[in-house]
């Protein structure tokens, strides 16, 4: 995605956040450091909230004009 033309940075960011924060390989077990620090969750929530806000904007004005295609 990074190497292709991006028509809308907001839509692309939303797609990235959707995947990187919520998908991918999740390792469980003691060998992996938990990222459950309160500060991290707080900071993480700020990122998630901003992505939700972006989604709300999209819902209000769905992919108007140049936002129809993220690439």
């Amino acid at each position, binding site marked *: *995605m*990074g190497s292709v033309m991006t028509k809308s940075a907001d839509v692309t960011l939303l797609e990235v956040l959707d995947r*990187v924060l919520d998908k991918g*390989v999740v390792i*469980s077990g003691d060998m992996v450091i938990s990222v459950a620090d309160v500060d991290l969750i707080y900071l993480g929530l700020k990122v998630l909230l901003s992505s939700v806000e972006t989604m709300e904007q999209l819902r209000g004005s769905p*992919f108007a004009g140049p936002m*129809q295609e993220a690439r």
Partner: protein
Amino acid sequence: MKLYLYGIVDSSDRIKEAIDGLRGSRVYSIPYCDIGVVVSEIDQVTQGVTQGCVLEHEAVVEKLMADFTVLPMRFRTLVDGRDNLLAMMQSYYRDFKGNLERLRNKSEFGVKVIWPADKVKENIVNRLRSDQPETSGPRRSAGTRFMKEKFERYRIDEEFQTRADQFIKAMDIFLGKFAVEKRLEKLKTEKLLLDAAYLVEKSQACDFREAFWHIKSAHPGFKFLLSGPWPAYNFVGLSKHDPARDAEQANLFAEVARSQDLVGADGV
């Protein structure tokens, strides 16, 4: 030393290209048997979670994608030291291998479809009214009116869901021809008709895009978003861990640990 994990790759070879990781850290690969785990070293666990960090993570995974089949790690996967990392690789090796085989030469495409939900509902209401026009009869009681309204709402919702199903089915028949796996989510919100991820053979990517454009042009009232190719974030599946199976791999791990020592500190 904390290791930040970006992904698992289908090769134990070193990364040829210099890649910058989170906050400019050096990205390198640590081999385990015939696969590798791509990491960088970070000092503080409490580095802030920012949009920039997320994009840096994704940029590393995409660079890896150019040369390898990659299993992208969830953002902020950290392991405390090399021993723990190798223990993790030992524990998940078969899962990683299976996923790497399944995802070889494939990439993910995201498809979102937004439909004019208000207009769809309006259309449904009009159709239902034309099917059953209001009759001038004796004045209904409040209870009867309540039940009638509730039933109408139910019929509208049911028809709304049916139309969503019909559209998604038709679209999926068209796009699904070019995909090997898919994840479809219907009506996450009333307007977001479809949020889908398709796993597509790289050789089929052009056909998939073309099919998407055909569907898009056939539905001018809908809004479409196609994104990709992505690393297969939505298609990595790890099985639950069986302690007996993990123990079975312990001997293999001992061999690998010896080979790690022979290879050197980080396999770069």
